[in-house]
């Protein structure tokens, strides 16, 4: 299976732009039906089901969170957060021709602004991508924040 790195980078930037634009529905549509978004709570955490996570969400839980983003009664989301993401150091780490998937690692820097305050996020990101025609679907996105085990504020967004 030959997958062009450039195409992978384009896809990751496309995904980041959807998140920047808070186009949650379009972003969510990038996932496979059983796709998972995962933000571990410990560095190097390899098991989402034996250890607590910051976020570990399937399609239903993402739908609820996305509905919550639009719900003005969710107090912690008031004041219109906005943000941007930079994706870099993209590498294809593994290819599984049989499953038609690739594993991609990247580094993420992001900033979110809400209520007079800017919060920075730095993450080690792993995508498991399923090739679909000319593009990809996300089977797993794992975002390990640099400070995932630090005393920190709430996580009110997808990175």
């Amino acid at each position: 299976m030959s997958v062009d790195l450039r195409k992978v980078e384009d896809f990751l930037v496309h995904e980041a732009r959807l998140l920047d634009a808070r186009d949650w529905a379009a972003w969510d549509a990038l996932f496979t039906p059983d796709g998972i978004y995962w933000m571990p709570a410990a560095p190097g955490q390899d098991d989402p089901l034996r250890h607590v996570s910051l976020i570990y969400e399937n399609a239903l839980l993402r739908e609820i969170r996305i509905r919550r983003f639009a719900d003005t009664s969710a107090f912690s989301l008031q004041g219109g957060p906005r943000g941007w993401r930079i994706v870099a150091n993209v590498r294809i780490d593994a290819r599984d021709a049989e499953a038609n998937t690739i594993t991609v690692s990247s580094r993420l820097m992001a900033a979110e602004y809400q209520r007079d305050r800017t919060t920075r996020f730095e993450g080690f990101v792993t995508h498991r991508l399923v090739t679909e025609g000319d593009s990809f679907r996300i089977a797993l996105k794992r975002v390990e924040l640099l400070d995932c085990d630090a005393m920190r504020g709430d996580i009110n967004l997808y990175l």
Partner: protein
Amino acid sequence: MNPADTESPTAPSSWPAGNFSRIPAWAYTDKDVYQKELDRFFYGPHWSYVGLEAEIPEAGSFKRTKIGERSVIMVRHRSGAVHVLENRCAHRGMRFCQERHGKARSFTCPYHQWTYNLEGKLLGVPFRNGVKGKGGMDKDFQLEDHGLSKLKVAVRNGVVFASFSEDVPSFEDYVGPTVLPWFDRTFDGRKLVLHGYSRQRIPGNWKLMLENIKDPYHPGLLHTWFVTFGLWRADQQSTLLMDDHGRHACMISQRNEGGKADVTEGVTSFRENMKLNDPSLLDIVPEPWWGGPTVCMITLFPSVILQQQVNCLSTRQIIPCGPDAFDFVWTHFGFEEDTPEMHERRLRLANLFGPGGFVSADDGEVVEMSQDGFHHDPAFTTVCELDGTKIGNTDHNVSETLIRGMYRYWREVMEL
């Protein structure tokens, strides 16, 4: 806005005697009041939470944490006993231990290599006898006079508490006969299994977190998510209990029979889609040890909240950092006897309730906003008068009685 940049109300102004329902802003912002709280509650004759025995399974396993602002180490001795030592070298006061968790045979301060055993006894100091007959310690220097501060320790069914004070009552007397059975309901001697930590820095006064858990008024109003998924209703069967002092409390409630069929309008579309049956959402399985109640939130003053929210079990430790902030450390756990399915279920719920989830994010934010509201008008007082001004146990959840109980105790101990 950064509260530190704003002007704090100065010396405590008058608070009418006998009032426990109008809490003045200075109780949350004044630096001298805060220092007195540390001295009388966190360093005084009270028990503070330090952790679970499951966190230090083997001889030499240790965990670093804090009581108030003082750094302490909980460590398991070869004998199996749990010791809690202050993380402060007797020589130069260094916080010598910087690891959060680890395993050690002894503790050595990196500055001058004073070395202590796991009971805090000083084993030796370099150059004690000088070099080539010069310098060194005086002959009357005794190692036993220079150990680490060793705290008093209470372990009950796997949960470890410590106190800087020798005058603290027994843990059982401290918790009292009303609240202790609820502590024992979760911690009945079953072996605990650690599921991980979540850590939050919340920019608000530490008491606001206790108040949040002593306040059954807010969940249905702030956490609309709770209502949407039928986890909370204003008319659900609830009990509010406190110890004789009013410092500790339990909020106990039971989901109404009928459960999912009774939930409010917001969930209709989900119900139609049968999505509530998705096991990733609210796959709640009643456990025999609940004996009925689906939620039991215990506040053990001043340092910890013990949570049972359906199948989700956590301790939430409160570590104050100045009057305007506290660290909030969640330790998620289950029982050794849990099936793999139950283990997974507890974790999924922990993700939902935790700081990245749908509930506690809101609590953290409101605590911050309250703190900000206290900073600009020393004469401001909060109003905790839901269910009047009386203090006592209730059989409903439309009451702020537990907050009033806490402030009655607070005023007594603080002499304010």
